């Protein structure tokens, strides 16, 4: 599951995608997109575009939101894809609210004692676990007006990973995710610095209180953040071409982007930072854990020696922590790998697991220059990803196109599209059972790696790293609960709890099985359900008790939502 075989994949991908990608040929959706960078920047006036087709507009919303709604669909059809995206870039973030500092060690009056609903348990649940943050995640995903920002921030949270396994304090996780929401369309350089100086990341990957070399004790700086910021958050382990393919040396081997000496260099760069002081306190080395604010420097604990960075760059000795940080983050930011490395992952999160090399190259070009000479404009990158010809069209035909809906999207989309509601409590437990506890990845390597392959093939399929018998049953059983069993009741221990429910009464009014299936097909999957599958489902609907029309609607919705065709967004 852990392959990184970009090189071998590229040829096969290029061949297949050249033949069959961009299935929107002939659709007006294809015509509405602006293909060639750098003209994709939203700040320029887009050319007059024909209204997108229903299917293409619906596909855009599957990629850019947590589920297609009738009102969003009408809006996109009315104003066009470019205008919709431009507007989304400017919607303010729906932020995590209601959290405040708590000491890292829970007070003795606040513990999980197995008594649901008592004060001690609620304190442990609401302040010393991510429960309320996860709940708010789903509320934002279901109802936030900033849908694209929420989708992109969630994708970024899977690249710049922190996990509630260590960040269990709700206020800390809220702070960090608010930062990602703020930076979702900002410049990558801003994001990189905000992540680096976040005390939450500082805690998770040990940059906080990372001390300089101590010769007397025989110790050297902690290498955790220095290594992973390179490997996972910016450039990756091997040199890439702009199209995402591996650069190879004369013997055909990949070319490492850094070695242990460079990891040592970055580890030394990231010394001399501690947690922000608590209110009223003075900053000092080994400040206690505090996630509010940004980390502060303590120059006396910063490694004074010169550091080796990427591609032979060395820093001057005796720079301040801030000077070293700027040198190092600029070095990373300007590495040519960042565009294809980050761009390809964002494509995989939003559009398709197997983008063509040309698609990746177009996004890399926008990362390098947003059309106004600016490198790293994430808003322009996201816009380019979603307006690319390979993203648009009514019905892509490449056999390796699309991606498995990740659990968070799988549990929210039916609720948004079918007019349901949820307080997020059940959605979190359901998503976790499918392998995706929100903000709870098992390690900094996320729930699944971008390089994951379908077993025995060279087809990239990141989300399939958490697709297995246990999680497949969890998906079907979730649909059973919300569609067939009537949902989940409110939790009396949660203030404002409403449970989770999806009313299907309006669909029950359609009594003709074929018409009913067609209605769900349009609502849930832009009419892409095959005729063969539609017929199977209509037959099952016809077998339901006619005296209870709801049974027919439940049958149709259950079978569509649990199908492979629905679960893979194409």
């Amino acid at each position, binding site marked *: 599951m*852990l392959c990184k075989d970009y090189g071998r994949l590229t040829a096969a991908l290029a061949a297949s995608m050249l033949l069959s990608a961009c299935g929107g040929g002939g659709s007006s959706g294809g015509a509405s997109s602006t293909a060639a960078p750098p003209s994709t920047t939203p700040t320029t006036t887009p050319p007059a575009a024909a209204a997108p087709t229903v299917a293409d507009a619906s596909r855009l919303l599957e990629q850019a939101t947590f589920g297609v709604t009738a009102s969003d669909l009408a809006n996109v059809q009315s104003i066009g894809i470019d205008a919709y995206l431009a507007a989304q870039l400017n919607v303010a973030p729906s932020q995590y609210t209601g959290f405040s500092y708590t000491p890292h060690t829970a007070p003795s009056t606040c513990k999980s004692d197995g008594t649901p609903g008592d004060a001690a348990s609620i304190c442990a649940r609401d302040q010393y676990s991510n429960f309320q943050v996860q709940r708010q995640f789903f509320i934002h995903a279901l109802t936030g007006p900033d849908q694209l920002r929420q989708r992109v921030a969630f994708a970024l949270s899977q690249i710049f990973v922190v996990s509630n396994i260590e960040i269990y304090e709700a206020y800390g996780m809220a702070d960090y995710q608010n930062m990602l929401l703020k930076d979702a369309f900002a410049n990558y350089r801003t994001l990189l610095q905000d992540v680096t100086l976040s005390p939450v990341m500082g805690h998770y990957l040990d940059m906080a209180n990372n001390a300089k070399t101590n010769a007397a*004790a025989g110790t050297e700086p902690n290498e955790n953040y220095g290594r992973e910021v390179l490997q996972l958050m910016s450039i990756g382990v091997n040199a890439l071409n702009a199209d995402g393919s591996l650069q190879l040396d004369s013997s055909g081997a990949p070319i490492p982007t850094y070695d242990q000496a460079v990891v040592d260099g970055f580890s030394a760069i990231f010394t001399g930072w501690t947690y922000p002081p608590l209110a009223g306190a003075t900053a000092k080395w080994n400040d206690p854990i505090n996630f509010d604010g940004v980390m502060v420097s303590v120059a006396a604990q910063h490694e004074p020696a010169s550091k080796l960075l990427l591609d032979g760059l060395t820093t001057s000795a005796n720079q301040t922590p801030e000077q070293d940080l700027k040198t190092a983050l600029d070095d990373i930011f300007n590495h040519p790998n960042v565009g294809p490395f980050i761009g390809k992952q964002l494509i995989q999160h939003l559009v398709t697991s197997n983008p063509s090399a040309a698609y990746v190259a177009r996004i890399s070009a926008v990362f390098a220059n947003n059309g106004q000479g600016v490198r790293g404009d994430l808003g322009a990158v996201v816009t380019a990803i979603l307006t690319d010809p390979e993203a648009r069209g009514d019905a892509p035909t490449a056999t390796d196109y699309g991606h498995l809906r990740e659990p968070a999207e799988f549990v929210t989309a039916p609720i948004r599209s079918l007019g349901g509601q949820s307080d997020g409590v059940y959605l979190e437990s359901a998503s976790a059972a499918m392998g995706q506890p929100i903000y709870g990845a098992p390690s900094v*390597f996320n729930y699944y790696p971008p390089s994951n392959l379908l*077993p025995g093939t060279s087809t990239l399929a990141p989300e399939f790293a958490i697709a297995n018998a246990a999680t497949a049953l969890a998906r079907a059983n979730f649909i059973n609960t919300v569609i067939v069993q009537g949902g989940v009741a409110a939790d009396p221990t949660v203030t404002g709890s409403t449970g989770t429910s999806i009313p299907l009464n309006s669909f029950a009014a359609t009594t003709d099985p074929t018409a009913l299936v067609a209605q769900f097909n349009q609502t849930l999957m832009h009419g892409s359900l095959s005729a063969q599958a539609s017929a199977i489902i209509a037959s099952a609907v016809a077998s339901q008790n006619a005296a209870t029309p709801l049974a027919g609607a439940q049958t149709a919705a259950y079978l569509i939502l649990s199908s*492979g065709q629905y679960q*893979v967004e194409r």
Partner: protein
Amino acid sequence: MKRRSFLCHAGALAGTAALGQLGSLAVSAGTGNDYKALVCIFLAGGNDSNNMIVPVDTAGYANYATVRGDLALPQAGLLPLQEAGGVLRYGLHPNLSGLQSLWSSGSLAVVANVGTLVQPLTKAQYLSTATQKPESLFSHIDQQHEMQASIASVSSNTGWGGRLSDQLAAMNLNASVPPMISTGGNNLFVTGAASQALVIPTSGSFGLNGFTSSAGDTARRSALESLLNVDQGADLVAAAENVMTGALSSSAVLNPILTASAPTVAAPFAGLTTSIAKQLLAIAKVIEARATLGAQRQVFLAVLGSFDTHTDQINQQGSLFSQLDPALTAFHTAMADIGAGSDVTSFTLSDFSRTFQPNTGGGSDHAWGSHQLVIGDAVKGQVVYGTMPELALGSPDDEGNEGRWIPSIAVDQYAATLSSWFGASPSALSLVLPNLSAFPAAPPAFL
């Protein structure tokens, strides 16, 4: 993967394991006379094995303690591993008392300094740019990949457990479940050329909810299964459908076994609530049902994470070992209780060990060769196999000067011993471990 290949690797299960046919499976069960299982315990994140096996002789401990500093375990707490002939060189981490008992009873062996290699490697060769070295050393994901592949390149797409299962498929023709089962999610180790492990949950039901015997539900269930056979032209759609197909057939067989009220193997696990204990209990339940399930060669994978101890190494690893030790001990007892003590061999793997030199944060960083544990009544125990590295920074075993040991035993050789015991013929072994011939030394003879 297309449906046909899935059915191929799924063996007989699709044909025989419809709902309610468990009884008939028992009738066609294997003899039970020839059964073996390998259980991989993957210590994810990189287990600092410098603190798992520690020198206890005076000079050796003094050297260890000098370099390890705050990470040095107190000498008095180390659990002696007396070797055959009365030699005492090493001690176990103090939280591994159950494993010390297994050592004393001859059911535990230590294999020293195992890791990813392209060929036998000296320090001089390592420092030469002309010598082939494993790709992306010291990187979690890549070294996990290479340890599970037993190929020192990140481009392999099968694991050695998977290839071993492929080679022994003829032993599992009567099996009603896939030959590989994981309680630790999808992993390369249990991915073969055309097969993938069944991933089972360790608590709750492993079944499909919401179907009664009503006519309407029967029609819905029938449609659900029919839908799994259509529209396989799209790769990812086909993959999703195939996962569900396997889930439906396997869960029908295994759910009654996993949720049975009082299997024999449960008793040794009484009171254990950790993830690794639950995983090993689930695996033990499957093994207890081996005659019913009909498989004669099963490969299992359990995963215990959080070994990435860049900080607070002493407490974090201590806590993890406190979870691991009783779980492994209970599993060994459970296997003996069902008469499978000699038929089941458990063994560890990890991403890598960690730097012998501590960092300034009370932890250690990513390194290379690591010591492994092998457990079972078939194990030739009370022996440390291989050569311990010279525990000095910059020593001939150190790739640099922070204590990253160049492995003296390739994971290929370690896997060869396990695979041969499992039943791989020499010709099969060359397919399971395609790079084994690069290592002329005989594999360590711990089985």
